């Protein structure tokens, strides 16, 4: 219940910033001279219980941060693999309430959890109530793929009130002005989309990712994590050369779907080795 952001009038000097568990993990990785591995899985795929076990297993196998996806009926930033997984989750009766159970389990296992959600699900629950529930489950913050800072007034206030990180996206199309607006509103880290497109594995991550990270570093000191398209050890190592974190989603979802938790753990270990190859 302690507010972490103080009014400028009460504390003229800049207030000491209390880092979230996720931000602490990113700082520790930076100190080690390596990128963090951020692993995404949606709640409810293939079932709520298995998805939670899988997220905890992924953390134990070497994912530094867990990105907990909330299934939504209209996932316009997601490619086919995550669409199918979240459809399965919704058909199985997954509810938004289940997300907080997953976050609690991950936090209890000592790992950092961010929730990736489309905005209508937060609005429907009530922005402040969603933030309060996330904070009490031990979550670090929200990643919001269809919310831009321009529309985020209520979330900026709620995330301040509940001490949560807020992760907005930047993209290869972002102008310097948009990069400044997006990163200026972020706390914790910045999510850089590697390509123009939706989630899914790709043959190559492409040079746009390096360019967008460089542009982002020009306007912020926050860690920059790169998502979209990374599926294997070599790609993870490649992105880890220039990013603070490598975000993997569809490939992990496919592994879980095809080979269960053992396959998920094996891929996680591969990716964790990848982010350690490019020591800086």
């Amino acid at each position, binding site marked *: 219940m302690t507010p972490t952001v103080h009014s400028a009038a009460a504390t003229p000097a800049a207030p000491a910033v209390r880092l979230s568990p996720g931000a602490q993990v990113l700082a520790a990785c930076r100190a080690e001279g390596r990128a963090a591995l951020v692993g995404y899985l949606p709640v409810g795929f293939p079932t709520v219980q298995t998805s939670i076990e899988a997220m905890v297993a992924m953390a134990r196998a070497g994912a530094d941060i867990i990105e907990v996806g909330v299934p939504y009926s209209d996932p316009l930033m997601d490619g086919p693999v995550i*669409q199918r997984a979240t459809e399965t989750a919704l058909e199985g009766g997954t509810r938004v309430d289940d997300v907080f159970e997953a976050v609690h389990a991950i936090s209890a296992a000592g790992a950092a959890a961010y929730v990736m959600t489309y905005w209508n699900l937060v609005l429907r629950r009530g922005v402040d109530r969603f933030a309060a529930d996330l904070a009490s489950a031990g979550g670090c913050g929200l990643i919001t793929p269809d919310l831009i800072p321009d529309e985020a007034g209520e979330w900026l206030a709620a995330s301040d009130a509940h001490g949560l990180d807020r992760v907005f996206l930047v993209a290869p199309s972002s102008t310097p002005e948009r990069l400044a607006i997006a990163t200026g509103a972020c706390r914790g880290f910045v999510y850089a989309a590697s390509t*123009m497109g939706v989630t899914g594995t790709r043959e190559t991550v492409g040079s746009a990712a390096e360019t967008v990270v460089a542009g982002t570093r020009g306007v912020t000191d926050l860690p920059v994590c790169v998502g979209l398209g990374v599926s294997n050890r070599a790609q993870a190592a490649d992105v880890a050369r220039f990013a603070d974190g490598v975000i993997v989603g569809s490939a992990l979802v496919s592994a879980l779907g095809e080979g269960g938790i053992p396959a998920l753990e094996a891929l996680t270990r591969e990716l964790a080795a990848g982010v350690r190859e490019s020591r800086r």
Partner: protein
Amino acid sequence: MSEQLGRFGEFGGRYVPEALIPALEQLDEVRRKAAVDPEFVGELDRLHRTYTGRPSIITEVPRFAAHCGGARVILKREDLNHTGSHKINNVLGQALLAKRMGKTRVIAETGAGQHGVATATAAALLGLECVVYMGAVDTRRQALNVARMRLLGAEVVAVTNGSQTLKDAVNEALRDWVANVDSTHYVLGTVTGPHPFPEMVRDFHRIIGVEARAQVLDLVGRLPDAVLACVGGGSNAMGIFHRFLLDPSVRLIGLEAGGEGVHSGRHAARFSGGTRGVLHGAATYVLQDDDGQTIESHSVSAGLDYPSVGPEHAHLFETGRAEYRAVTDDEAMQAFRLLCRTEGIIPAIESSHALAGAMAVGRELGPEALLLVSLSGRGDKDVHTAARWFGLLDDAEGMP
């Protein structure tokens, strides 16, 4: 109302991925400049006159009006436009803007196929590559429109995600747009989506109300007591309403699809059965469950079968400037048949919802009333549905 943020009261805005913001900003800038550029305005006007067939006429329908409590009823005939509906007004405007932005490819979503056909038509006329996303369920229901789009040179992609209907086609079009935004303009078909679409699409359809207001004054010498239009996304309704917003004596009445009845749960009546939310880029009214998951809509009319509605309608609803009523499938089909038999005009089933509204409102207001109804489209595409609804053909006559 903030023009800057594209808000209508609390509704509208831009709830989309950051990746699309530069394209939306470019579109907003280009359409604002075009709106005051004589060259653009002149070219669009020329196409309206020589291609679409504008101005569309108005038709007084006394034999139909006898079933509307004796009120005078005047139809605005958007059904007579090239491609058979009001959709062409918006599509020509956006296709010209796409060329101005140097884009070579247009994409569109479509439900029944009317907007897809209109977009394919404009793309053929202006030499643009065209891809239309259509739910797989709808491609089966509207196979002739799929063939029509292919004849016009468009690629039609059947969307097999989610409910395989209009909302999923919008999702897929947005995914395409994010990936191809450098070369591609998304010709959104109604007054929804992120800013500037709701405002821009309304402005391209505003000509409906501008013409109709002058035509009614010319014919009758006074303003109508009520203007009625069906509301799916709500583009024909915003088009005819907008010129009347500052005429306080004119009631604006939107007719939503009540499907099998609002209490059945199978409907598309966002203002009766929906709540505030965000869908496809705009804050508006949405059919959704307690978690915020979209609930699938239902209507006999594919063009009204959409779980969300344009944000400006949400604003007009909350301020009380416009009223919204639900018309059931059955009421709409009765009005459809009545106009066919009394006036020799086969209306679109979408527009038949507005006709059913006129029957009810006319009875409420009585014989002194003057009603203006937007006949937004013609019913050729609906003959199959109507034949089945009314049992007009024997199995042997080839109706599947």
